[in-house]
Structures are given as structure tokens and as C-alpha cells.
């Protein structure tokens, strides 16, 4: 067997034959084999020579004329005409093989976020956002760019989404809307008085809810707040991450350690400066690592290296970050995709009963703060944005938000009431949203639309004259200034 093995290897690579390293026996065998090859003698015949020669001789002989075999091998006669034959597909072994992407590579490509485009023109006179920029009403209808260090922090928070058109412009910049100033002013006022702003951003598709959340996060970073951002609530409730019950909880709650580990790493990265500065004030038991008092919070965050124990570390971190009276900065707790945590999750109990999203510990932490059951002692904001694409129907949430909105407008009679015959209302959801503030985002005003279009034009992306006419046109095509639709109508079509 060994001889035949060697033989095969030599035949495949004849260059090996003359090598000095080859053993004498191998050299002999291979020399013989190559000699046979040169003679045109079939290999099978040679290999099987000791066993039988009949079949091989038969194969080597030319078929006698007139036999069936001769007919098979002969070229088709002219009279026969063309015969339809299905050819076997040849395997592509010409060397140029297509390399399939590595595991995870496709997803990484899909999820990648490009924040700069060197082909886009730099916009002259574009200034960076300052700590107070978004508070100033005179900045409404202006486009300001994000400072580089904040961009890194936002990236760590995963505040940028793949569906946003950051990759078309030289530098990530944002439009200051009236709603932006409204939101930021509320955040600022809450932080000043050590209160918690509890707010939900809602609105139609692509009206800029996620971007408004990004603006809030930006403001928090610019003012040195601690930021905890849950970038996509869907990941928490669609049963795509591991979960485990937490002992000694009644009713039983579930932790999602893998997700929490990822969250801790994001917090670590985006709040790096603060975490290095702030020190622990409590001693924590049961952590994977002993963290003495007065060690930087970063050390505590770093102790979460494995999913196991991540939940304990997160709890300790939360306790430290919200410690009262130790000079802790205000905090922003934000979440995108509120609809997904306002329903029964896809997780199941061991008895195969569905788990309500609010029984997941991390979601519970958020909803407790959103409902006002717990508040942030150092002030700050809890902001959630609803999502419209890929969002499950959620009658209680929709109703609650509509009610809050109507109440804010001061309409006593116009407050919508639940439909008496509709099932599927959820009391827990209503309880969470009983007294939150709501900002409903709608289309841009024409002035805002104009500012945005001027920015597009200055970046060289929009190649038309920006005047009253073109602004109205895009504004109308975008469904009365819905910013995402305007973008679609003017940037993402090839027609202009």
C-alpha cells in the first residue's frame, strides 16, 4: 500500500521525482511510473498487472469494425444529423477558485458602518458641535458636525445605524431640528435639578427617531454624562441571546449574560474617560475578581471577561454609577426599538410558558427607570425610541403613546380610549408608559429641509440648485418633509 501511496504522490507532482530527499525505494517506483507515463501506457494496467490483464487488454484493443463498441466510438455520420446531448457540467479546477467568505465575514460586511467618504466634498464653514450647541435655538436649521472623539464614543455605543447615509459625506454631521432643541433643553433641565427625564421618541417611518436618539447621546457625551445605550432592543427579546434565571427572584427574572458582557464592553469603551476617573465606593461580593474600594470603575468593568459573572459585574457597575452623593455625573439610559421590549418575548420558561419581556432583568432595569419606579439619583434621562420597520404590532404601546401625546396637547376629549372589543392590551406595558413624555417626530419644516439640502449640495451629493422650487419638490416627494423619504427621493435615486 505504501508503495502505491508514494506512487500517487509522485505522479501528482513529478517535480518531486528528482529530489535528493526522496528515499531510494520511492525514487525507483516513481521513476518506473514516470517512465510508463512517457510511454503512454495506462496506469491502471500497470497497477493491476499482477492481478489480471484481460480487461485491460480488452480496453487497449481497438474495437472491431461493425461491433456496437465501434459504433459508439465512431463520429456521427452525416445522415444522422445533429444529436442533442446534454453535456456534463465541468468542475472548475482551472485554479481560479472563488474564495468563500469566512464565517461571520458576511455579517460584518452587512453591519459595517462607514462614517466618512473621501470622494465627498468637505463642506466649507461646517463647525463642530459644542457642549451647548444643541441648546441654542439659534442653531435650529443648521448642520453641525460631530467631533471626532464623540464619533468614536458613538461608534462604541452603536448609535450609528447601517440604514443611515453616513457613508455619503466627508464627516458625520447632524441637522439641528426644533425637536432637537426641545429634547436637549428638557435633558439639560432634568440634569440640573437631579431629576430624571423619562421620554419616548415616536413618529412615522424614517422620521429621524434613531437620529434624535443619537443627538441625545451626543449631547450626553459632550457634557460628560455616563451613557448606557441599548442599540437594538430586538436582540434582547427575540431569543437570540442566551438567558438564565436569576436565583432568589420572585417572580423569577432572567439575565442575559452574553448580551450584558457586550454591553459592559460598550459602556467601557464609550465612557472610558469617566470610568478611569470615577472610583468605586462600595465593596462588592461575588464578583469574578476582588475589587477594593476606591479603585477606578474601569477596573470593575474590566473584571467582566467572561459571560459568566457578567451580570454580577453589571449590577455592581450600575450600583457604582448611580451612587448618590459621590460626585457621579448625570446618566443617560437610552434604548432603540421600544416596541420590542413592550411585548411577550420569544423566550420560554422551563415549563415552556412564554416569558414577558419585562421579566428579563436588563429590560426590567430599563422599564423601571422609564416608568419612574426607580429614578436616576444623579439626574439624567431615560430615552426610548420606537421603531417602525420590523416592529411587532403593539396596541397597548400605541394607545399609551397616543394618549400621552393627546394629554400633552391638552385635549381632554380627544384622548383616545382603548377599543372595548380588542384583545391584546397589556397592563404591564400601560403601567410603564403611564406618565412618560412623548415627542412625536414628523416631517421637517421647509427651512430645515432647505438647510439639509444645502448641506447635501455642498457635499457634492445633490447636484441641483437648491432654491425654493427644488426644496418644495423634494419636500413634497418626501411626504411633507419626512427626512428619510427626502433622502430616498434625492440621494438614493439615480435619476438626478
Amino acid at each position, binding site marked *: 500500500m505504501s508503495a502505491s501511496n508514494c506512487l500517487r504522490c509522485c505522479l501528482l507532482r513529478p517535480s518531486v521525482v528528482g529530489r535528493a530527499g526522496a528515499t531510494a525505494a520511492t525514487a525507483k517506483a516513481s521513476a518506473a511510473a514516470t517512465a510508463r507515463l512517457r510511454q503512454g501506457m495506462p496506469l491502471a494496467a500497470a497497477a493491476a498487472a499482477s492481478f489480471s490483464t484481460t480487461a485491460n487488454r480488452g480496453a487497449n484493443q481497438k474495437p472491431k469494425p461493425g461491433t456496437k463498441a465501434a459504433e459508439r466510438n465512431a463520429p456521427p455520420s452525416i445522415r444522422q444529423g445533429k444529436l442533442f446531448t446534454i453535456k456534463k457540467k465541468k468542475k472548475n479546477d482551472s485554479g481560479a477558485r472563488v474564495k468563500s467568505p469566512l464565517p461571520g465575514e458576511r455579517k460584518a460586511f452587512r453591519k459595517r458602518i462607514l462614517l466618512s467618504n473621501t470622494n465627498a466634498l468637505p463642506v466649507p464653514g461646517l463647525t463642530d458641535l459644542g457642549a451647548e450647541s444643541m441648546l441654542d435655538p439659534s442653531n435650529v436649521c443648521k448642520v453641525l458636525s460631530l467631533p471626532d472623539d464623540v464619533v468614536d464614543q458613538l461608534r462604541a455605543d452603536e448609535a450609528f445605524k447601517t440604514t443611515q447615509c453616513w457613508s455619503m459625506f466627508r464627516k458625520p454631521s447632524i441637522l439641528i431640528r426644533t425637536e432637537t432643541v426641545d429634547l436637549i433643553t428638557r435633558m439639560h433641565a432634568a440634569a440640573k435639578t437631579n431629576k430624571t427625564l423619562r421620554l419616548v421618541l415616536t413618529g*412615522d417611518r424614517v422620521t429621524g427617531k434613531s437620529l434624535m436618539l443619537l443627538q441625545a447621546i451626543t449631547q450626553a457625551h459632550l457634557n460628560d454624562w455616563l451613557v448606557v445605550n441599548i442599540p437594538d432592543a430586538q436582540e434582547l427579546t427575540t431569543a437570540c441571546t442566551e438567558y438564565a434565571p436569576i436565583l432568589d427572584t420572585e417572580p423569577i427574572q432572567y439575565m442575559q449574560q452574553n448580551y450584558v458582557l457586550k454591553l459592559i464592553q460598550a459602556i467601557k469603551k464609550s465612557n472610558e474617560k469617566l470610568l478611569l476617573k470615577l472610583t468605586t465606593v462600595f465593596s462588592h461580593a461575588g464578583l469574578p475578581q476582588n475589587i477594593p474600594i476606591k479603585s477606578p470603575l474601569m477596573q470593575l468593568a474590566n473584571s467582566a471577561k467572561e459571560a459568566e459573572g457578567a451580570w454580577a459585574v453589571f449590577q455592581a457597575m450600575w450600583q457604582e454609577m448611580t451612587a448618590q452623593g459621590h460626585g457621579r455625573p448625570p446618566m443617560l439610559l437610552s434604548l432603540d426599538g421600544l416596541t420590542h421590549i413592550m411585548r411577550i418575548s420569544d423566550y420560554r420558561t422551563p415549563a415552556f410558558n412564554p416569558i414577558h419581556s419585562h421579566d428579563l432583568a436588563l429590560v426590567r432595569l430599563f422599564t423601571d427607570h422609564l416608568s419612574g419606579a426607580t429614578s436616576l439619583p444623579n439626574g439624567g434621562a431615560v430615552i426610548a425610541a420606537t421603531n417602525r420597520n420590523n416592529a411587532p404590532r403593539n396596541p397597548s404601546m400605541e394607545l399609551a403613546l397616543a394618549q400621552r401625546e393627546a394629554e400633552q396637547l391638552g385635549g381632554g376629549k380627544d384622548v383616545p380610549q382603548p377599543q372595548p372589543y380588542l384583545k391584546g392590551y397589556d397592563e404591564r406595558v400601560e403601567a410603564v408608559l403611564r406618565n412618560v413624555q412623548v415627542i412625536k417626530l414628523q*416631517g421637517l419644516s*421647509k427651512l430645515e429641509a432647505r438647510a439639509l439640502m444645502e448641506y447635501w449640495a455642498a457635499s457634492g451629493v445633490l447636484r441641483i440648485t437648491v432654491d*425654493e*422650487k427644488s426644496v*418644495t*419638490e423634494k*419636500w*413634497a*416627494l*418626501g*411626504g*411633507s418633509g*419626512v427626512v428619510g*423619504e427626502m433622502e*430616498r*427621493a434625492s440621494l438614493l*435615486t439615480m435619476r438626478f
Partner: protein
Amino acid sequence: MASSRLGISTALRGVRPSSRGQWRPLDQQFQALQLFNDPKSTRCLSTDAGSFEDFLKTQQDQAIQAAPGINLADIVDFRNISYARAVPVSPSYFSRQPRFNDSYLALQKLMQSYGKLPVVSTGEVERVAWKSLVEFRQMVGERVKASDYVKCLEIIKRLHRIHPELKPPIFVEAFQAFKRDIQPFTNKPNPIRIDWVGRALGIGRRKSSVARAYVIEGNGEVLINGKTLADAFGRVHDRESAVWALRATDRLDKYNVWALVAGGGTTGQAEALTLAIAKGLMAHEPALKPALRRAGCVTRDMRRVERKKHGRVKARKMPTWVKR
């Protein structure tokens, strides 16, 4: 001269007998042969049996009977004349197409008389649908030659171009025989009016969609079935189609649109809206019509789904060929 050989009885064949059962004077009878007795009276031919009412009356009065022979001796005016024959006034009486020839000659005469009058340009002439050759042949009951009819129509069209203020009233009568009975050009659509709040309602159709669009002066807001343009149409192309009338004329920032659209699919609805909005816009600014026509917003696209035929999978598609 076939009729002369047949004699006077043939020439007078159509002359109706008087109610008194007596013959009318010959000159009166000859008058019936005149193509034009009087320029103002209606045409009367020898073959005419008088008016339909008279005919009916005669029928009631007496049973049909053969005309008695003419006894020239009884005719007072011609008592001393040994030989007389009825001579038609029009020389074309003896041709194959007397009615056409008479009209043709009359028109030529008119052309000679009025041909020098100033004309208006072809665009300003009142549009008239003239009879086709077949229709004219049917009307006169004569085999009119196509080339003759074309020449005749040329004269008519030339005369028709004469400035309306200078056109003599005789033309109306002269042209009457050549005009089609139903004049499609007189069917004018009702003009769209702008109502008391300034809305103009345009209706447009495409495929199986119907759109009603209220166009009102404004600042470019569009609501379709209570939804914004973006909500009503997912495709940007459809959104552009819907407001194309306003975009093509640079009026998107000058008007608001509130529209209702039903039936069909998205493309049909969007293009029905194009037409509806264009009509509403034309009510506000009629001068935009040429621009809108160039933009393709004026003409209704009449194409519908072609019906399915038996033996075919769809309207045209054949079933898959199977060997046996």
C-alpha cells in the same frame, strides 16, 4: 338623350297629380324639373314626390293610379304648338350624378364669386367634420367619383377658410350637404370651474384606477386618501408620476392637492392622479395646456388589460409545448 326617346311621360313620371284630379299647367310642371326653382327654396327635382306629408295626404285621398296620358290639345298655352318637350333647368339632369354635379357647379360658382375674400389661418378655422365619400354617396344615391369628391371638398375647405365675419349666409346652405350629420367637434367638455373656496376638481383615469384631485393654490402639500405622498406610494417613481403635472410645469410649490384615488394598482393610481391633477391645474391656468401636453399629462391612456383568449394561457401566451 335617353330620356327624350322615352318621351315626355318618362320625364314627368314623378309629377304628382293635383288633388283636383286635373293637370297643372306645363310651366308649373316644368318647374318641378328645375334643380333650383328658387335660390331660397329647398331643392326640388323632377323625381321628387313632394313632401312626405303631401305624399301621405295623397295616399289617404285616393288610391294609387297610373298617370293618364298627356293630351297636348287640352293644354291651353300650348294649344297651337304641335311639338314640345320638357327641358330640365339643370344641364346635369341628364348626367349620371345630377345632384352631385349641381352641388359641384354651385360650389364652383361660389368659389368664383367669393374666392378672393380674406381667409383665416388653418388653425383658427372652426373645425367641421365633412362627409366621407361613402357617406356622401349614400346620401345622394349616386356613384360619385372619388377624385371629383376630393376636388369638391377642396373647394369647400377653401371656402370654409374665409373669414367668418365676411362669410355670406349662402354658404351655410351650400355646405349643408357635405357636413356630417353628427359633428363631433361641437361636443365640448364642460369646463372645470373653480369653486367658492378656490378648488378645482379634476378627474383622471388610468388602467382601472379613478382619481379625483382637488387642486387649490397653496405651498406644495399633497394628501392622497388622507396620506402623504410618501405613505401613499412606496416607490419614488410613483410619487413623481403622481405630481408630475405640477413638477413638469414648476408649480409644485404653488398648489396644494387633496386627492381621492381608488381601484387598480399603484402605478395605475399614480398615473390616474397625473391626469386628475393636470386637469385641475388647467382649470387654474388654461395657458399651461401645451406645456402639460408636452409633458404627457393631457391625454388619457386608454389601454386596459387585454382579455384572455381561449386556447391561450393569458391574452397572447401559448401553453407550454409538450412533445405528446
